[in-house]
């Protein structure tokens, strides 16, 4: 190789530094999370300014392993409601909700009436169905989420079935789906989602989150939440609830937020050749409804150096809450042998459960894998790409973390 003299090298380094500085300087013109949404942590990653999409950096997510505070909770808005870009609560005054469709006694209620009804609380995992999308290969379309499109939050409000009971209303036998519409105030685009009628059991008209008024940007004053379901189904700023015979046909229900499924089965997924196209119909695909089994390693973090030889490995696991998580296994040898972690609890839960285990690891580089199992025998694939789908939904491949033991 021809030798570069010292002066040339220095010049090149200077040029590189200047270019980097220029890139940084210009990049900083893009607004930060706290400028886009009042009260959000400035460190959130801005995936889109409009509609607002913010990802929680992984180290920030793991710093709050119990509950995810409103300041750092991710945002995936499909529509922005003008004036609602804040973590402060929104006024219930003047907000009304229409409840109808296949209901024997349709009604409209003032949202503030909800305060006089019995309140219920649920802690649940709120997760964007695109969370982990960036791990699919080849890349799929959509916001390139890492793992930060998830949080564990406590919602409080009135159960939809308690509201129906209070109003003396019952869905008719033909009602197979619940369809929720978001407010269109200020000319907002329409946002509609349908979930199966079984979701009525736990559906909650949430008025608060983590003990505070529900942040406007997260759907305040009233959000219809379905514990166990992916984020998109939990309609923010709910204004109309319909009981329906079929799934809604707007774009958010078809073809968006769906994965290929064996025709007419709604079975978990139909494996695809990565990179191809697929014709999505109601018969050939299923919506991103129930959260699939997943687990995250909260410690050690990727690239960390930790003291050895006894290393505490910990994290969280969750599913759709229909059956309990029964085991989380860890492997330090690429999946040849697995160690069981200790679980915080083994009851059904819509929230994530914490797990931990101390492993004996020699000094040097290591890669740890975590895999959760639930009582229905469902688990996570070692290769998440098996479920490759065009829009990159529902990634639950086993998480791997590389770190060094000192």
């Amino acid at each position, binding site marked *: 190789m021809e030798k570069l003299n010292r002066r040339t090298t220095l010049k090149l380094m200077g040029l590189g530094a200047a*270019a980097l500085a220029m890139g*940084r300087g210009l990049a900083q*013109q*893009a607004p930060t999370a706290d400028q886009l949404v009042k009260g959000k942590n400035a460190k959130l990653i801005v995936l889109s300014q409009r509609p607002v999409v913010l990802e929680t950096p992984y180290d920030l997510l793991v710093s709050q392993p119990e509950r995810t505070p409103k300041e750092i909770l991710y945002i995936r808005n499909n529509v922005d409601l003008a004036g609602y870009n804040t973590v402060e609560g929104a006024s219930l005054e003047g907000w009304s909700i229409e409840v109808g469709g296949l209901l024997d006694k349709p009604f409209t209620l003032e949202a503030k009436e909800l305060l006089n009804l019995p309140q219920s609380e649920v802690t649940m995992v709120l997760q964007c169905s695109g969370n982990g999308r960036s791990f699919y290969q080849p890349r799929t379309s959509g916001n390139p989420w890492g793992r930060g499109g998830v949080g564990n939050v406590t919602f409080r409000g009135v159960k939809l079935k308690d509201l129906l009971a209070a109003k003396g209303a019952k869905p008719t036998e033909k009602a197979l789906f619940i369809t929720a519409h978001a407010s269109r105030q200020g*000319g907002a685009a329409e946002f509609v989602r349908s979930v199966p009628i079984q979701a009525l059991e736990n559906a909650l008209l949430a008025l608060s989150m983590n003990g505070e008024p529900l942040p406007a940007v997260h759907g305040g004053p009233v959000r219809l939440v379905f514990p166990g379901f992916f984020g998109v189904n939990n309609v923010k700023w709910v204004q109309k609830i319909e009981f329906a015979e079929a799934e809604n046909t707007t774009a958010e229900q078809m073809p968006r937020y769906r994965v290929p499924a064996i025709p007419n089965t709604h079975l978990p997924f139909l494996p695809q050749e990565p990179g191809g*196209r697929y014709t999505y119909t109601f018969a050939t695909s299923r919506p991103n409804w129930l959260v699939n089994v997943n687990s995250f390693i909260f410690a050690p973090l990727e690239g960390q150096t930790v003291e050895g030889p006894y290393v505490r490995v910990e994290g969280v696991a969750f599913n759709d809450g229909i059956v309990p998580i029964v085991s989380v296994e860890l492997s330090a040898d690429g999946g040849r042998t697995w160690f069981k972690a200790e679980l915080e609890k083994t009851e059904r839960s819509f929230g994530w459960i914490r797990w931990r285990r101390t492993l004996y690891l020699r000094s040097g580089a290591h890669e740890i894998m975590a895999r959760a199992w639930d009582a229905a025998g469902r688990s996570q694939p070692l290769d998440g790409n098996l479920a490759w789908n065009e829009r990159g939904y529902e990634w639950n491949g086993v998480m791997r973390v590389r770190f060094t033991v000192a």
Partner: protein
Amino acid sequence: MKRFLFLTVPLLGLLGYWALSQYTLPEGLGKDLVLAKCQACHDLGLVARERLSRARWDAVLDEMALQGLKLTPEERAGILDYLATYLGTTPPPVSPAPTQAAKTGAQVYANCMGCHGPEGQGNPPSFPPLTHVGPWAATEGGRTYLLHVLLHGLQGEIRVGEASYNGVMPGFSWLSDEEIALVLNHVVAWKAPQGFKPFTPGEVAQARAKPLSPEEVWRLRP
């Protein structure tokens, strides 16, 4: 040869870093059409950072049509060609020196057209007309307001004539000072006041130095 690589590899890397940190689209036939059609509903970062095959872009356009995007067959073909060529899985290399002819305000206005219409006529109920902003260019408060709207966006209810609008306008801070000045002069010229003093890149740079939130910009409205 090795020395050449030593020079170009880091430089290309830095160029790539620079390109990805921006919400700007690569130059190419059809870019203005993409600017005009896509920004009405979402920011350009969503488009600029994708690297998809032609088939996948085709699917994305189908999906956008379901979300209300209206295109003639010619426009659709033009947009698909642009996306597949410049934002495909193997896009052509970025031309090293952007030595194109100087831009005009009308060209920069392609960024605004999708929402506000080709002649600034607006698109109720979400997007107000721009044909009324000319006189503001003659007042100090009006100039400051216009500069900030363009750089930092606007959020809050406004009245224009008989109608009220309550959408969210994004900031366009990724445009250069020159481009912002050009497009402001273009818009203002629809109803230019007497003795109108054109916006200068210097003025833009000054406004840029004091970033405001879209709500703060709203409070500046004359």
